[in-house]
């Protein structure tokens, strides 16, 4: 899980072009949107693309978005659960 979260942080920084954020500065449980990392709705779409490109995962139910994308940890848990279910 720790390795996956570290990889996710690096991918988020690269995919979302967060040039003033270092991957290690993103907390595992830090909210990604609003007052947390400050991501917006376009960033959410980019994370969906990231999941598809890097992990082959498509979000089937958009209503799950806020829950899945809450933090790096929740995304990592979603990826792990998805890979285990395969």
């Amino acid at each position, binding site marked *: 899980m720790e390795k996956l979260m570290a990889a996710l942080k690096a991918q988020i920084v690269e995919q*979302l*072009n*967060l*040039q*003033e*954020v270092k991957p290690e500065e993103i907390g595992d449980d830090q909210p990604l949107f609003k007052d947390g990392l*400050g991501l917006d709705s*376009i*960033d959410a*779409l*980019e994370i969906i*693309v990231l999941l*598809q*490109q890097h992990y082959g995962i498509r979000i089937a139910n958009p209503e799950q978005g806020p829950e899945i994308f809450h933090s790096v940890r929740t995304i990592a848990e979603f990826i792990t659960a998805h890979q285990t279910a395969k």
Partner: protein
Amino acid sequence: MYNGEAYITGSCVIRDNRVYRDGELLLETPRELELPEFLRAGYDHFSGQYPKFHKMDPLSKLGWLAAEVLLKETPLNGYPRESVGLILANKSASLDTDLRYYDSVKDIASPALFVYTLPNIVMGEISIRHGFKGENAFFTTDVFDREFMVGYISQLFLEKAVSACLCGWVEVMGPAYEVMLYKVERAGDGGLVFNADNLQKAASI
């Protein structure tokens, strides 16, 4: 009775890896520095602390940076936000970004690129930064038609649709770019009268 006269109270020119304000060279980077690196240098020099800049396309970065240079020391704070307009023009619209978006569609379309596939997005970025809510328009013409721009904007002043505005030319296509951005106000102590000749004069380096 107000006759629609307005004044050019500031200008910013960006070309050839140089940034000028009111004719004064403020930043120059080596010619071999490509546009993305030049824009980053401009951001670091004039602004910082605005991470969204890095997500913008080159057109938005150029317009945003020029507005930053123009308004940093003399913002248009004295006017109601609804009376500050933005009127811009260029030759290539958003084609520079459109082509990159088209390339991305071959794989998985990039939402971050898609949102910049309209030329007027640059005005949105400037408006968000400075809180402008007034009239805005973006024109696409082969060359910077100063007579047209003066005529259009003078009418906005005459109708009292604006009390101040940013206007000018923000062009980018691949490595080629040029910005001539002007601050125009209804009252302008010492400013040049807003006409086509003075637009040219204000951007003469």
